[in-house]
Structure formats: C-alpha cells, structure tokens
C-alpha cells in the first residue's frame, strides 16, 4: 500500500518529466510520439477530475440552499438552475448546437471579457496606492512611474519629446534588465524544483511531509 501511495506516483512523475524534457531537447521521433500520447492521457485525466470539482461545487451550493445561508442561498439556486439548464442544452442539442454556442459566445465569453476589462481599473487603483512618496525609494519609483505613464501619451511625444524619450528609456533599458534578471532567477528555481521532483525529493504533490518520508 505504501508503494502505491508513495513510490509509484514518484516513479510516474519522474519518468514522465524526463520524457517531456527529452522530447524537447532531442529530435527522436519515438519521443515525440510518446510525448504527444502522454498529453492525450493528461487531457483525459483532467476531464475526469473536472467531474470531481463539479460535484464538490454543487455540494457547497446545495448546502447553502438547505441551510438558507443569508445573502447566498438565492444565488446558489440561480447557479444550480443555470448549471442544469446548460447541461440539459448540451446533452439535448449537443455542444456544437446553435443554442449551446450562443450561450457560450454571448453570455459566458462576454462576462469573462467584462471581468478581464475591469482589471485596468484595479491596476489604476493599485497604482494610486503604490505611487506615494513615503521615502526616497518610493519617491524615485513615483518619478520613474510618472515618466513611463507620460511616454504612453501620444500628445507628450509631440509636445514634449524629452519626457517621452526618458520614459521610453526607463521602460526599455533598466526595467527590462531587472525583469530579465528576475525571470532568469525564477526560471532557475523552477528547474531546481523539476530536478527534485524527478529524483523524488519533492513530495508536496503527494501530500506528504518530510517526517512521513523517514
């Protein structure tokens, strides 16, 4: 039983990780075939796990309805009703039907786009909080941030070119250099995590702590 819970998952993870890495690095046809087959298996497993997530979500909303949780139970009824409606349309008319695609394109997609588009306003709110000259470093960030925002305005490029050039330089020279340094360091950290996973030293995805390994 311990082998099924501990060693077997580690063997699977390690071997699949090595397969994916070798497929990327080496131009061997059999590796390409194995890698693409593995990705098909992954899609199938994810589909099954989606069922588990759906059941869990429905259970939470069902409990809110039965307990009449204030402020939530009406929305839970709405959620379950819409869920059943979409399932009925999908099973009855097919997921390629006009009605199902209309629900996806004109309801779901638009709601998603609305949510994503509000991110701009949240960024502005965060910037208003962050750009405060509390000390020398934050004052410097405020000045640099102001020039970067100015260079994005076409009228500044026309009327006051030095501000545009300075903002452009801030954005494309020191900022890019710092970003790439952080990206490289984070990338090395991820490669180390991969190395530990392949060798079986990383056990977080098994839910095991270090003491359980000994």
């Amino acid at each position, binding site marked *: 039983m311990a082998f099924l819970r501990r060693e077997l998952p580690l063997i699977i993870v390690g071997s699949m990780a090595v397969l994916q890495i070798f497929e990327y*690095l080496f131009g061997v046809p059999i590796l390409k075939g194995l890698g693409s087959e593995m990705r098909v298996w992954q899609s199938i497993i994810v589909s099954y796990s989606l*069922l588990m997530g759906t059941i869990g979500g429905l259970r939470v909303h069902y409990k809110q309805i039965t307990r009449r949780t204030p402020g939530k139970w009406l929305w839970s009824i709405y959620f379950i009703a819409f869920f059943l409606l979409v399932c009925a349309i999908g099973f009855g008319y097919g997921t390629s039907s006009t009605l199902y695609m209309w629900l996806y394109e004109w309801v779901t997609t638009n709601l998603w786009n609305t949510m994503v588009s509000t991110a701009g306003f949240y960024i502005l709110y965060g910037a208003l909080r962050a750009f405060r000259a509390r000390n020398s470093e934050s004052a410097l960030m405020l000045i640099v941030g102001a020039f970067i925002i100015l260079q994005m305005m076409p009228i500044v490029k026309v009327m006051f070119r030095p501000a545009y050039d300075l903002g452009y330089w801030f954005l494309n020279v020191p900022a890019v250099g710092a970003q790439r340094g*952080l990206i490289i360091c984070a990338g090395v950290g991820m490669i180390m995590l991969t190395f*530990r996973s392949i060798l079986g030293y990383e056990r977080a995805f098994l839910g095991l702590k270090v003491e359980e390994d000994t």
Partner: protein
Amino acid sequence: MSLISSGKAFDLLTLVVIWGSAAYALYLLKKGTVKTIKTMPAIGGITEAINRAVETGRKIVFLHEGNLASRDTLPTMACLTFASYVAEQVAKVSGDLIVSITKTSEVIPIMTENIKTGLTAGGAPELWTPDMLRFFPKPAYTIENVGLIETERPGALFHFGRWAHSGIINSTIGRVVGAMQVGGTNLLGSTSYFAANCDYVFIGEEYFAAAAKLSGNPQALNSIYGGDLSKTFLIAVLLILILTISFGFMGFLDLVVM
C-alpha cells in the same frame, strides 16, 4: 539527422550545468552539509496574518490559481507547500480556513491531501471538512474569488500560484475588505500587483526558495544552493556574450544559438 533538436544544444548544456550544480549540492548533503536560506519577512507575515485573523474573529482564505499543466505546474507545486504550511498554522490557532482552487480541478485531490496533512501536523485534523475547499472553474473563477472575499470578509488572505490578471483584482478587493495579505507568484507582472496591495510578497525566486524552506526538506534547501551556483555559470555566459558582441565578435553568440 542530429540527435539534439535544432537550436537546443545550449539549452541542453544549461540544463546539464544546472542539474550538475543541484547534484553537487545533494552530494554536499550526503557529506553532512545542510545549507540554510536567509530569513524572509514574508514567511513570518503568513503566521502574523493568520494570528491576526483569529484574534479578530475572521476567516482565513487561501487563493490558488493555476493547474498542473505546462507552465502552471511548478508554481502550483510550490503553492501546495504554502497551503500545507498555512493549514498547519491555522490548526495551531484553531482558525477557520477556506481554500479556493481555480481554473481546473486536477489540483483538488492534491490540495486536499496537503490541507489534511497540514492540519494534522498542526494538531487539529478534526478541522478538516470538504466544504473547506471551493472549486471555481474557468472562466468564472475571478468573479467567484471576488464574491468569496466580499462575502467571507477574511482577516487573512493568501495569493499563491501562477497569477495572471486576476491577481490585481483579488488583492485590491482584499485591501478593500481590510484583510492582511501575503502574495507570491513566479510571474513578474503579477508580483508588482501583489507588491502594490499585499502586506508581504515573495518576489521572483523567493517564491520557490520559501517553498523549499517551509517544506523542511534538506534536499530542497541544498538544491536552492545548487541553483545559486548555476547562476554563476549563467552570469559568466552573459558577461562573455556582452563583451564579445560589444567588440563585434559574433562567434560566441552563434555557438549559443546553435
């Protein structure tokens, strides 16, 4: 036909160097040398946020974004360590924890195991209930997280995983409800969002280093040291490239992209 794919030779060399550094670090471990990682304030911030939430009678919400596919895998695996640590700290103070899993559902059983393990390690396995985990699929997970934060009004809010645009939205709402926030992600753009709104943030490799430190795994700690060693190789390559290209010699660049 070449064995190594076109343009991947330097990738292979870099991988060999980085893994070689890790192997050397593990060799040092076998010799009895356990490396340590510096104290990160954000790790103490996790405990501080949980204690503050329990003192004010508010809940603790742990938000995760990402899945176990492609580029989300490694940040998600690091997030699992944070989840286990948060659960352990919550168990010690008998807090009320809610964990949000977004995008895809394959993380659910793994996160469940980590939360249970953390609660057990904290001495309160009885705190676990299935309702502790909330799954929010694409594409509604952003607004569902917003709804979760606004209805539960947590005292402590954690953002870990591979956060994209929703990081700024969730952290801003967390700021509005008055939660103490700790954030960590590998994406640089999202790190800036968390830096603006969170009380503590893990920047860049701190995210993975903190996960290694919290796991308590000596192999993980030594592998971070191995990563630092491999960065000297990368810095050397960059310096050589800068000097050779500055003086008009492109041979080394051609070698790198071979």
